[in-house]
């Protein structure tokens, strides 16, 4: 019997993976094949990437369409033969993958995401078993040793947050939730240019479930919620399936692995609001309210979900935990540089030849990612600007691409690593359009609490339109700077506070785009028709 893998993650599906699987099934109706729907390896430019198991290991072909199947079979697909032009060789030898340092994405694309057996067979649930043999404080100490920092953007040390929740007194209050603590996974992944959270959930969901269960043991929480953006229907389905299996097999529920400890897990869907990625807004949304940002303090660690002590961590933060418990905090800390320990999943996106997930220890440069991994733009034109760290991150010109990818080094040049999203633009980009979009996005997604963010962003769009049309351009450029100051100073959260990043960097590094003859300037679109 021949085992063939056809991925089922969102990207592979978006490029026709189901049609490929169907074509394979039909063409092989009278052959003995075992078709496995794996996650994705994250080599998205090769999707759909199908793999065949051979005695030389798994062999890859991609990007495959359903029309390619007959020719592939003729050229010896089922034996892993090299004849067809889509032959990529042994998967693990593909340089893009081979040179990565995969800890979090170690299993991605290798296993069937909803097979608990596969997960366990590939090292899953070792961390939970070790955690069950430890005290809560010992688990927290292990996470502290690892140096793991939050992967959702703010890079706060995870161990310190957990310690606060562990030490918090949950007994106060008369609400039906008193005595309880919660683990909340932030799976809102709203940043454009990011999909690493999604890939974890779609390719290796048990790892997240295990990480949350360990977090529950560490702080004494018996319930977890995964707050998932509604834009991720595939992840939703896969998570629900994996949770049901984990419950049925005793990895979740009232008595986790007969330890006497309970941990329940539920997915809650967001409803299309970017701001609900901000942790306090997320908590209000989880409670069934408008997702408005709360004033801190109190910290969510002390007064979080339903007023109770709560760990809020990003998907990747929680997904790193099983490795840390299985291999030890030291093993994780051995990767990285300075205060940025471990690995980060960079996501190469936008106008890039080889887009995908690149997990590396901190310290590589942006240029290595863009050139060695990314292979330049998909359009073949020169790269002009790169936005790192999501819609609130700065646009970086070529002079900054040698900055090492680490939280502190980026912050020195006024940029952010954030969730590791890297969006590439070629030389046809109009940076005035990009600055305008940053303001427009802030206007659309503001939670409405602060006037500068709610109103200032709309003014920002108008001012940029005037700059484009050369109406009192110099005065409006000054006005735009003032607006950025106001947003920075008068915003409660980073939505308003960091929207100036993309705007200012566009102005500073690409000034020509703000001084064009108005007749040659391009015309950006708006949500409002």
């Amino acid at each position, binding site marked *: 019997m021949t085992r063939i893998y056809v991925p089922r993650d969102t*990207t592979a599906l978006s490029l026709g993976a189901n049609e490929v699987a169907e074509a394979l099934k039909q063409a092989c109706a009278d052959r003995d094949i075992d078709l496995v729907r794996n996650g994705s390896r994250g080599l998205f430019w090769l999707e759909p990437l199908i793999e065949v198991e051979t005695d030389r290991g798994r062999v890859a072909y991609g990007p495959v369409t359903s029309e390619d199947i007959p020719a592939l079979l003729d050229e010896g697909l089922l034996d892993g033969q090299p004849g067809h032009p889509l032959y990529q060789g042994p998967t693990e030898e593909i340089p893009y993958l081979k040179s990565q340092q995969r800890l979090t994405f170690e299993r991605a694309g290798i296993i069937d995401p909803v097979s608990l057996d596969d997960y366990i067979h590939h090292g899953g649930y070792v961390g939970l078993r070790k955690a069950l043999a430890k005290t809560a404080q010992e688990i927290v100490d292990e996470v502290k040793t690892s140096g793991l920092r939050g992967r959702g953007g703010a890079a706060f040390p995870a161990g310190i947050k957990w310690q606060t929740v562990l030490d918090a007194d949950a007994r106060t209050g008369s609400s039906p939730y008193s005595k309880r603590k919660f683990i909340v996974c932030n799976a809102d992944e709203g940043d454009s240019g990011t999909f690493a959270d999604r890939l974890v959930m779609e390719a290796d969901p048990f790892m997240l479930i295990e990480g949350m269960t360990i977090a529950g043991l560490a702080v004494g929480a018996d319930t977890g919620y995964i707050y998932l953006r509604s834009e991720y*229907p595939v992840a939703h389905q896969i998570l629900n399936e994996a949770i049901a299996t984990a419950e049925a097999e005793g990895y979740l529920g009232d008595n986790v692995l007969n330890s006497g400890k309970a941990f329940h897990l539920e997915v809650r869907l967001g409803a299309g609001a970017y701001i609900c990625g901000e942790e306090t807004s997320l908590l209000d949304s989880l409670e069934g309210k408008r997702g408005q940002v709360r004033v801190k303090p109190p910290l969510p660690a002390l007064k979080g*979900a339903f007023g109770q002590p709560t760990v809020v961590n990003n998907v990747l933060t929680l997904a790193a935990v099983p490795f840390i418990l299985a291999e030890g905090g030291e093993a994780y800390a051995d990767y990285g540089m300075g205060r940025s320990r471990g690995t980060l999943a960079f996501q190469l*996106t936008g106008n890039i030849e080889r887009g995908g997930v690149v997990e590396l220890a901190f310290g590589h440069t942006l240029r290595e990612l863009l050139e060695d991994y990314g292979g330049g733009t998909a359009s073949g034109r020169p790269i002009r600007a790169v936005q790192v760290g999501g819609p609130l991150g700065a646009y970086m010109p070529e002079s900054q691409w040698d900055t090492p990818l680490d939280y502190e080094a980026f912050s020195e040049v006024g940029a952010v690593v954030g969730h590791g999203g890297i*969006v590439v633009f070629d030389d046809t980009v109009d940076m005035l359009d990009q600055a305008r979009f940053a303001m427009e*996005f802030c206007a659309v997604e503001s939670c409405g609490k602060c006037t500068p963010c709610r109103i200032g962003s709309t003014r920002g769009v108008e001012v940029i339109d005037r700059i484009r049309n050369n109406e009192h351009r110099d005065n409006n450029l000054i006005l735009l700077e003032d607006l950025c100051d106001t947003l920075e100073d008068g915003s409660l959260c980073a939505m308003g506070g960091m929207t100036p990043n993309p705007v200012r960097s566009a102005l500073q590094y690409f000034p020509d785009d703000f001084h064009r003859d108005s007749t040659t300037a391009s015309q950006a679109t708006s949500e409002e028709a």
Partner: protein
Amino acid sequence: MHISAQDSSAGADLPRDWIQVEVAAHKAKPGPLLPILHSIRNRLGYIPEAAVPLIAEGLQITRAEVHGVISFYHDFNTHPVGRNRLQVCRAEACQARGCRSLEAHAQETLGIGYHQTTPDGEFTLEPVYCLGNCATGPSVRLNDDIHGRVTPKRLDALLDQATTQPLTLQPLAEEPES
């Protein structure tokens, strides 16, 4: 203003009993409001005005609170939507792959702007800010399927497919009012 396939004030078709059952089913869980609104949206495509008092009563909160929540979230339309929901990603990574011309094409082909429904009730067009498919943009979501590297031509084919398939199942699809 566009005309919807159904009249938004119509309360006649409102599955009142079902909504009440749905509210009761979620009521015991912490933070039940979003799950309730999602389940109504899944079934009806939107949140009818007449559902608001039923939810408010069931959860013992004010109607204003329910309204406040519905209006906060982009997902919860308060008017009927088309049989198909087309979302075009407008975010940065898709911009880098030409989504600005794709959105223009979608609006022109369907003859509507964002947040509008075609007069025949087939499509509602919505903006979306990232579908997590940013390495292979531009991306769109048609109902629950996400599509990558969508050219204008590919979009036309997707729209075609969406209209031809359900029509064979529902040959008596209601005519739009005009």
